[in-house]
């Protein structure tokens, strides 16, 4: 019976989620306000530096999300920690990760166009991120394949780990392939220190924090949705069974 692990969320969870939602909303609004209006334009990049308050946080959240998804998949496969929760968490985190990877690519591309003059360069980080995007789109496609709960969960978990093993190999080989790698400007402390304005660093930090909050909020909601969908599936089955039984008796 799945009934015990199910829905009708306790008040506390609902309240916590709402607080989290408000906090992330406030954080994002503050980041945008600081990023667009308060911080000065950069000496070299001009206003384009404002994109860097959102782009690195997107990338960070994407990698965090895949890390969480892989860890949850591993915990699901480990017999002692096997639980439906980890499967749902992996699925939720994977999906949110794909959204953030897409945004990483888009925001990076929008920054790259005026900076490099092209929408795309075959830089190792970019290429790896793009491959990660398709890799995890494949994972989501695999998750969407219907099947009995534990079969699907195990299949997806193994799929996630196969994809995860690939990430370092992809990154290293791509980096080797194109050694013209430009260090991501913001993360490079030597170029950074010289011209960064105090408010810029704080804005970036706030960006990291608030988009991480957004991530947790989204994952929590995606998780609850998965829970409800699973409940609905079992319920559908139970109702159908009950109807059959009732028919048999009524005859």
């Amino acid at each position: 019976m799945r009934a015990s692990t199910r829905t009708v969320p306790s008040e506390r969870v609902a309240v916590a989620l709402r607080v989290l939602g408000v906090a992330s909303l406030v954080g994002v609004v503050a980041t945008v306000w600081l990023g667009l209006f308060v911080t000065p334009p950069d000496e070299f990049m001009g206003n384009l530096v404002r994109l860097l308050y959102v782009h690195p946080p997107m990338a960070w959240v994407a990698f965090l999300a895949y890390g969480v998804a892989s860890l949850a998949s591993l915990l699901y496969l480990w017999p002692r920690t096997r639980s439906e929760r980890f499967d749902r968490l992996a699925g939720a985190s994977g999906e949110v990760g794909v959204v953030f990877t897409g945004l990483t690519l888009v925001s990076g591309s929008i920054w790259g166009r005026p900076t490099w003059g092209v929408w795309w360069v075959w830089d190792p980080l970019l290429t790896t991120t793009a491959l990660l995007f398709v890799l995890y789109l494949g994972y989501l496609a695999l998750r969407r394949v219907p099947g009995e709960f534990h079969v699907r969960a195990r299949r997806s978990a193994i799929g996630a780990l196969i994809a995860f093993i690939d990430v370092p190999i992809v990154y290293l080989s791509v980096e080797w392939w194109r050694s013209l790698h430009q260090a991501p400007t913001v993360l490079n402390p030597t170029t950074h220190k010289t011209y960064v304005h105090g408010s810029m660093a704080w804005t970036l930090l706030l960006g990291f924090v608030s988009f991480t909050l957004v991530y947790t909020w989204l994952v929590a909601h995606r998780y609850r949705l998965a829970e409800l969908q699973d409940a609905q599936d079992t319920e559908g089955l139970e109702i159908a069974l009950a109807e059959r039984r009732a028919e048999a008796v009524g005859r």
Partner: protein
Amino acid sequence: MLRDAVLVAGKDLRIEIRSRVGLNQIGPFALAVLLLFGLALGPDRRVLAPASAGLFWVAVLLSTILGVQRSYAIESVDGARDGLRLSGLDPAGIFLGKAGAVVVQLLVLETALAVGVALLYGARLSGALVLIGTCVLGTFGLAAVGTLYGVVASGLRIRETLLPLLFLPVVSPVLLAATKAWDEALAGTPGRAGGWLDVLAVFAVLYVATGIVAFGPLLEDG
């Protein structure tokens, strides 16, 4: 485990030799891909010859998908898959056997493709040792990932579309490393291919190991 692997590989290869699907369909498919690349890039050998390593490996990748699908298609008829599952063979052995059979077929195909690349694109095959080493290591990686994802997809109704989506991004390092190693060999500097061969070896070892561990549960589920 290895005995079971040889059994399964022998079975798969015997079926292939008798049915000739590989010979009659996958081989010609790869040839068609080579011809299409020629059309797409134009008749200029100065364009084609430098690209031949990459084109060769893309053709191999695409053929691997067909090979893996074929490898599981022979299990889907007459409940052969259930037979395999209930046979008492070690799942790791089944994995190695099926992957091994795919490796053998791919190596045959690659030989033919190499000749095709030399003839059609004017690539000069030099550095034979590196070329062969790349093929062997790369093919092991491809077959391992293919066989692993093949069993994931094989029980499903949407396998034809799911397998390429799962397979191709994962094997992108193989495409990259194998192409680079071939580039070096074809350019007459096979000594510089060493690092790329390492990448291929690491990839192959990692995914063969993953397959040995994960194949059992996946086969059960299907």
